[in-house]
């Protein structure tokens, strides 16, 4: 499974449709404080099925929907789509006859999230399992949040041990 493209609309500060192409090797993301870099990272974890609003610096999952600025009104829906290459046919049965997989998560204010894979409605756990089978997912140890290194350093030994369990 290879990650090809992340597409966002209405997710936090990415109110306008935005495409991030993910190519092989090292892709750098730069910009001033507060411009949206960590929001982009959160969109990736969100579409992979993270269910806790706390993972998004939010008090409620609706907080990931663009909440407006002094110049624009709030939106009522946010959608993130992740396009995956499945040429190696490693996807679970039912999704494995396609070269390309598109995982889409959409949230409607006050109504929770919906998930689709290649246009078909699925449950959050189907999305979680799709990524778990590919050694990744919203809780993958390879997704290092801003400040997480400091948390590991300051963590109690028992909390730090949990990192090992991600590897087990």
């Amino acid at each position, binding site marked *: 499974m*290879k*990650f090809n493209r992340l597409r966002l609309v209405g997710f*936090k*500060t*990415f*109110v306008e449709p*935005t*495409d*991030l192409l*993910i*190519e*092989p*090797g*090292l*892709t*750098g*993301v*730069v*910009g*001033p*404080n*507060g*411009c*949206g*870099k*960590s*929001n*982009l*990272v959160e969109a*990736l974890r969100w579409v992979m099925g993270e269910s806790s609003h706390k993972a998004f610096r939010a008090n409620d999952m609706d907080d990931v929907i663009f909440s407006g*600025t*002094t*110049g*624009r009104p709030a939106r009522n829906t946010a959608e993130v789509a992740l396009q995956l290459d499945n040429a190696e046919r490693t996807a679970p049965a039912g999704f494995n006859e396609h070269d390309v997989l598109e995982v889409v998560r959409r949230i409607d204010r006050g109504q929770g999230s919906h998930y689709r894979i290649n246009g078909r409605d699925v449950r959050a756990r189907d999305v979680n399992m799709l990524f778990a089978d*590919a*050694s*990744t997912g919203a809780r*993958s*140890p*390879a*997704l*290092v*949040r*801003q400040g*997480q*290194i*400091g948390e*590991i*350093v300051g963590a*109690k*030994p*028992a909390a*730090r*041990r949990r*990192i*090992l*369990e*991600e*590897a*087990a």
Partner: protein
Amino acid sequence: ARERLQASFTVVDGHFRKLFDTLFGGGEAQLVLTDAEDPLEAGLDIIAKPPGKKPQTLSLLSGGEQALTAMALIFAVFLTNPAPICVLDEVDAPLDDSNVERFCALMDEMTRLTDTRFLVITHNPISMAHMDRLFGVTMAERGVSRLVSVDLQGAERLREVS
């Protein structure tokens, strides 16, 4: 559960020792699994000896040394089961120039060993210069993010202005 933890511990520790040596240009470190009756209460400690210094527990090292050591742990776990995507959000913040170079060299090594695609969020010009490509996130309209392609030569003169 206990055997599985012990087994994965041994594999991670093996990677961790090599990565520490790479990131510090020498020295030694080891992971220590502190035993407890209940495997859920077992703790993970780290003893690290940067080159020329004496071995110390993680909490006695400098800010940058701690970050580099934690990075060795993260990549050690990563190597036991490489993910197709790895995202690093400003992990180079506490590092001095030569440690940023080592961090970049490590990432180059990871791209050789695995098929993993890396997304690296950074404010550091040295890290930027090591990337294969750069995207800039801008807020020309306040509170609204847009993504733009940044030419790598332009990054030499890139000034982050909020």
